[in-house]
């Protein structure tokens, strides 16, 4: 464990942090970038902000834990997503899409789906901060 390769990443808002390579490679984007990147100590820039990245890393850490059971993971996921505000969740969805981590991406999308299922169109507009530009006559089925 002490010989784990480490990677330095730099977020969009200028924060640097270090991560185990194995964990960082959960993101295909990071994995592909490092294969093209000359190995030196310059941090790899990623298009994610630090607050969102912290959440991603928290998720990755838990899902990389050895010996953790399915049930524990499920409970963690529930709590993890429950604590996120809508805006944090959406930032996470966008970031994870960019990072290309299929597992977390699907989980985050499912959360958004849960939030919007059963809502009225006006509630949807409130959640996504969308202006209503549909006229009544242009409404479809």
């Amino acid at each position, binding site marked *: 464990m002490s010989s784990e390769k480490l990677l330095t990443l730099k977020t969009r808002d200028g924060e640097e942090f270090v991560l185990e390579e194995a964990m960082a490679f959960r993101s295909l984007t990071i994995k592909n970038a490092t294969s093209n990147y000359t190995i030196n100590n310059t941090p790899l820039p990623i298009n994610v*902000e630090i607050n969102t990245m912290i959440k991603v890393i928290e998720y990755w850490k838990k899902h990389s834990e050895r010996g953790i059971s399915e049930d524990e993971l499920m409970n963690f996921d529930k709590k993890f997503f429950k604590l996120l505000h809508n805006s944090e969740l959406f930032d996470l969805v966008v970031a994870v899409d960019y990072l290309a981590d299929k597992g977390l991406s699907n989980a985050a999308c499912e959360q958004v789906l849960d939030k919007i299922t059963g809502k009225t169109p006006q509630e949807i507009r409130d959640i996504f901060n969308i202006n*209503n530009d549909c006229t009544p006559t242009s409404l479809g089925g």
Partner: protein
Amino acid sequence: MPPKGKGKKGKGKGKGNGDSKKTKSTVPNPTPHLYFPKEIICKILSRLPVKTLLRFSCVCKQWRNLISKPNFIADHFRHSSSLQHSGSSLLIGSRHHKSNNHILSLYKPPEPVVDLENNPYPCFFPNMYIVGPCNGIACLFNPPWGDVITLWNPAMRQSRMVELSEREPIQGVHGWVSVGLAFDSKENEMLILRIFCVGLTSPVPNHVEMFSTKSLKWKELKNDMVFSIVEYTCNVIVKGVPYWLVCMIDKFGARAVCVRFDVGKKVFEKLPWLGRCKQHQHLVDLEDSLCMLDCSHKDNCHIDVWVMNDEDGWSKKCTVGPLLGFDRIEGCLRNGDIVARNENGVIFLCDPITSSVKAKFSLDNSKNDSNVIVDYSESLFLIRGMLPVKKQNAQDNLARKKLTRACLKFIIGQPSTISL
């Protein structure tokens, strides 16, 4: 990929000022601009059921336009029909045990069977066959001549009838018409095939015509292959390609052959077959591959599953069972669940690995023996000219009663005036 602070395609979304959505400090912005790239919206919306999407189509113009784009429709169908999707639906066609009317129902476990009120098929016709669904669209028609063709999207509740071509089957040459359905994903069009079937010993190839939902026209297809079809529909459709189990006569005698319609080349192709045609063999779509269920085991409760591979031909995939307590095996769903029926007409979905019952249902209103069960996935796909299906209203039924009465009177020689 989200670009840095660009207001991408966010026409009416957010406050549209294009600046980066969060300040660089760690103090959270009190009214965050929610910035959702189009790709993410697509990703999320493509996982919603059709009913929800239709409701959300009035959220804003961008969403409404998105839902009708062919790429989005294709993506949505990919999700809706994915094998990991929890629980596929079944489309069931049956007849009412009293009135003999056609009933179309949807079954999505664990919810109960729902009889659809909006039946697009005209109630005047005593027979209704279902072919498909393909890409979320089912084709209803009237045997034996494959007319009264109705294309129907159950999820969108829209349908349209398809006018036949001017070509008609020739008395004495053609015995019936077999209907097939195909989907050409390159051209994004649905194809309806009508095969005018000749008799078994006829040396003449079947006449084949094809309707395209893009051109909305029928076209005669060149067909040189001589084969004999005994069913009114293709046996199975796998990934938009229809397959028929046919009989071919060659120097060895009459053999059962599997024939496929090549959607790109618009011709029929022969596939290798397993030999003699046996009873209780079903061609099925199993996990998007062409498979065959051989239910002719001596003990009657095991099924051999064969899978077709283009290069190696047919090979035995596995044996399923024992499946006990069933009267008949109907087939299987795309995800492998076996569909079986017991002597009381109750239908069971069984896990192919453990043979345990996953779900069961009975069709309370319908006759036991008269039903057709097909694997169904929703889609947003619409064909030009489709209109909302109206409820099968009382007028339709009343008109039919009047007509029947008038016919009866005619038969027994009484005068009658028909006013419908």
